[in-house]
């Protein structure tokens, strides 16, 4: 059993990957919130292949989805983005007023200074966990 686990660990992509991860995610932060929250971050696709975010997860919210705020001409609208492509070499910034990872039905209040983790799933790169800090500003 122990041997099987050791073998699985050795064979898992994270354990044997000698190359830099093609997808890198950094500068993830959130705002104080108590029902709906949003995470902003930067994704860099440093690989040679196109990829796409097609799922998100977190343990602080009932559901986690990628959304986009957009200008309606009279104000700000928002829509769910089930699949967000990111081309090879592209840097995609999730910023207030644009893309964000939406935390729906928060299980606890997010207060300035809190830290938590979310995961983004990529069609090719798989799940990537991202540490998030809650910033008052």
């Amino acid at each position: 059993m122990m041997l099987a686990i050791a073998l699985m660990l050795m064979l898992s992509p994270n354990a044997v990957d000698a190359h830099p991860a093609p997808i890198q995610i950094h500068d993830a932060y959130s705002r104080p919130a108590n029902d709906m929250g949003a995470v902003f971050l930067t994704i860099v696709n440093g690989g040679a292949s196109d990829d796409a975010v097609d799922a998100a997860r977190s343990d602080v919210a009932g559901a986690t989805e990628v959304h986009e705020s957009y200008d309606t001409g009279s104000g700000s609208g928002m829509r769910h983005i089930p699949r967000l492509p990111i081309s090879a070499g592209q840097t995609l910034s999730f910023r207030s007023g644009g893309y964000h990872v939406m935390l729906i039905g928060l299980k606890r209040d997010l207060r300035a200074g809190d830290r938590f983790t979310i995961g983004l799933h990529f069609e090719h790169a798989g799940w990537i966990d991202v540490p998030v800090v809650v910033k008052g500003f």
Partner: protein
Amino acid sequence: MLAAISAVALFTTALPTSAAMPAGVHDLLGKPAPDFHLVDQSGKDFVLSGLRGRAVVLFFGYTHCPDICPTTLATIASALRQLGTEAPKKIQVAFVTDDPARDSPHTLGRFTSLFDPSFLGLSGSAAQMAPVYKAYHVWFQRLPNPGSAAGYLLAHSSIIYMIDRDGTLRFIHDWRDPMPAIQADLKELMT
């Protein structure tokens, strides 16, 4: 004059965002801010003109808003904190709901207290809210948001209204205006 400069500045330095202002908002500048009567997060009556002598900052939004409302309230809270301990005494910030069906006084209080305990969360019945939205040219629309677990969302105008201590609507800002520009006008309200 300052109001005029501010309005010009909005058009010259924030072109991408000024387009998002509903028609009529700029006409409010320099005039008495429309008075209204709502309830605050503790269920107490709130009358705008009752705050005469203190400046008031109004922002209309909803507590299920994950992006623009928290960002704007965090910006205002941070700008005020940097202006010193006198700022909250001289300026009252009030978040007014666009979503009275879901935003009870309690819900609003939980939300606004995350940014600053002095912030008010205002709501009322549909009949009470309607003339307030009309007077301030507040625009919003329910988005059904299919395929999402979030329930309905709102598209909404996202304007910061700044009312001086005499009750005149002195400045307006789009939520995306840079913090120093917002802070400069908050400072002006304190003088």
